[in-house]
């Protein structure tokens, strides 16, 4: 009886699709000229070939015999939560500024890991965000955002 490993099948299939994408995108690069016999397209094609080879090998392995070595499943919800935090930061960082965004992010991530002390985490997050803001902006000369919305209000 063949053991079917769906995760490996999906992963291998993704690699094959990626290989096709890389090859297509690589072909759109304007070609080289003059002495450059190899050109800028060669490397992407090589990468695509590597991805294709490993992808098909992994797909083949998904159908092979042998003991299942996949790790046991986990909980996708925390991953989604943390991803949402990071994506939100992309959009909210500039308008709202470093301190509020980072504080909320800290609390949400701690929540995703199972900590239910919401107020305490918000406090920790605020302190951490504040300290890093002061340290980086005034101590090291960086420019963490103050927040365009915050600036408009002040």
């Amino acid at each position, binding site marked *: 009886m063949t053991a079917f490993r769906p995760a490996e099948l999906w992963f291998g299939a993704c690699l094959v699709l990626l290989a096709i994408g890389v090859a297509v995108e690589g072909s759109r690069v304007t070609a080289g000229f003059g002495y450059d016999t190899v050109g800028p397209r060669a490397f992407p094609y*090589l990468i695509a070939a590597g991805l294709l*080879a490993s992808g098909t090998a992994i797909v083949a392995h998904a159908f092979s015999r042998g003991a299942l070595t996949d790790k046991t499943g986990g909980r996708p919800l925390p991953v989604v939560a943390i991803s949402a935090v990071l994506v939100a930061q992309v959009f909210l960082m500039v308008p709202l500024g470093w301190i509020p965004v980072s504080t909320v992010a800290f609390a949400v991530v701690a929540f995703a890991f199972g900590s239910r002390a919401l107020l305490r985490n918000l406090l920790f997050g605020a302190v951490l965000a504040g300290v890093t803001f002061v340290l980086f902006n005034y101590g090291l000369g960086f420019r963490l955002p103050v927040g365009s919305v915050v600036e408009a209000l002040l």
Partner: protein
Amino acid sequence: METLSALANGFAVAATPYNLLWAVVGVTIGTAIGALPGLGPSTTVALLMPLTYNVHPTAAFIMFAGIYYGSQYGGSTASILLNTPGEPGAMMTAVEGNAMARRGRGAQALATAAIGSFVAGTLGTIALTFVAPLMVRLALMLGAPEYFALMVLALAAATGIISGSAAKGLASLCLGLLLGAVGLDPQNGQERFTFGILELLDGIDVTVVAVGLFAVGETLYVAYSGAHLQDQVLAVRGSLWMSREDWSRSWRPWLRGTALGFPIGALPAGGAEVPTMLSYAAEKRLCRHPDEFGRGAIEGVAGPEAANNASAAGALAPLLALGLPTSATAAVLLAAFQQYGLRPGPLLFTSNPDLVWGMIASLYIGNILLLVLNLPLVGVWVKLLSVPKPQLYAGILCFATLGAYTLNNNVVDIGLLWLIGLLGFGMRVMQVPIVPCVLGFVLGPAIELMLRRSLAISQGDPSVFFTRPISCALLILALVLLCGPLLLRLRSRAPADAVERSG
């Protein structure tokens, strides 16, 4: 002897108060972050790179050297007290050291690890002092085809020697090469894989890749696999000093570990796992009390720790002399050099001797600082390790975002951090190794450049790689390293299949 005079000059550079301050900062932060579970030296260096942007390059690299060694020290503290090695090189220390800690001998484990690291680090740095210039002389014989072959060898070694699926190693490598190809092509400057996003023209920053793959990927994976039990930090009780017996049992493993670690660390085979495991096996074989292994034999901590630190020193030799990274951390350091517009290699020794020798000198100084810091400050590190997981990982993610944003004051980098973090997460779930990805990312543009330059010089003739003896030999070796383990595995599976069918 010009080496010694260059080194003396390096000490003069490293011992200025300004640079010494940065050395202290480097070793302290390196140890603190290296002690945190889940953050190994490569992530630490990548995370702390933004801190150094406003600092003079020499001071920045002195700080990096401190972080590099410091994170090794910190990692051993986490391994011994918390059984969570932050990186593969600390695995053996975790096995024996944690066993020692459970028997109430945690302080001795920490002491032997710290002193062994000091001995190995110092001896390793001495070896580095003399080996690096020798390698430089060797490097002057290498042209573009040889560099290409050497880098292919490095990647083949990292991909072929990992245990598990060769296909997954290749996939990891190709993903890294792909990430490295984003931006302008190295020879002609044409856009590739930028999808019209302006910020991608400069390529993806190494900090984003390293922090994304290691820190964010690890955070997502821990959240996914949900290990909620609070790890027990073992208290450091009883006498803090090593007994005479401890010393006599430790000093030979220290020396043997160093002898194993340095040369293997310098080889393109991906870092510290091999020498630490070899050291553990050797110590077990040579020990007079082999039954103690697994229950807290001090040799099992002394040897692997020394091997770990010596391999870190060893990895610096090809990095500085040839620009060839042999471990993920060395790859991140290489990228740091590139950020400053410096190219490690033979030219660096002549064009920036202050920087190179100052960095090597500060490795010596850093070792002393680390010994002084680690033994008395054990209590502080223990407190650090007691931070509960939710807040710890929330803090790590905060620093990761901080690091990514401050690179270019650009939220695109945070988005990339997330995407690459997802990739790192996926790789962990699928048990795909991560080191080939980082090496592929850092070496990809250089390999491509060497390939195209070689073919441009030979006017399109690919036999140039095989007609030159050095590059031919290196490429054959690379092929052996890639296919050898694969063939061995196929051969060992064939009789097993036969048994299955007949049984």
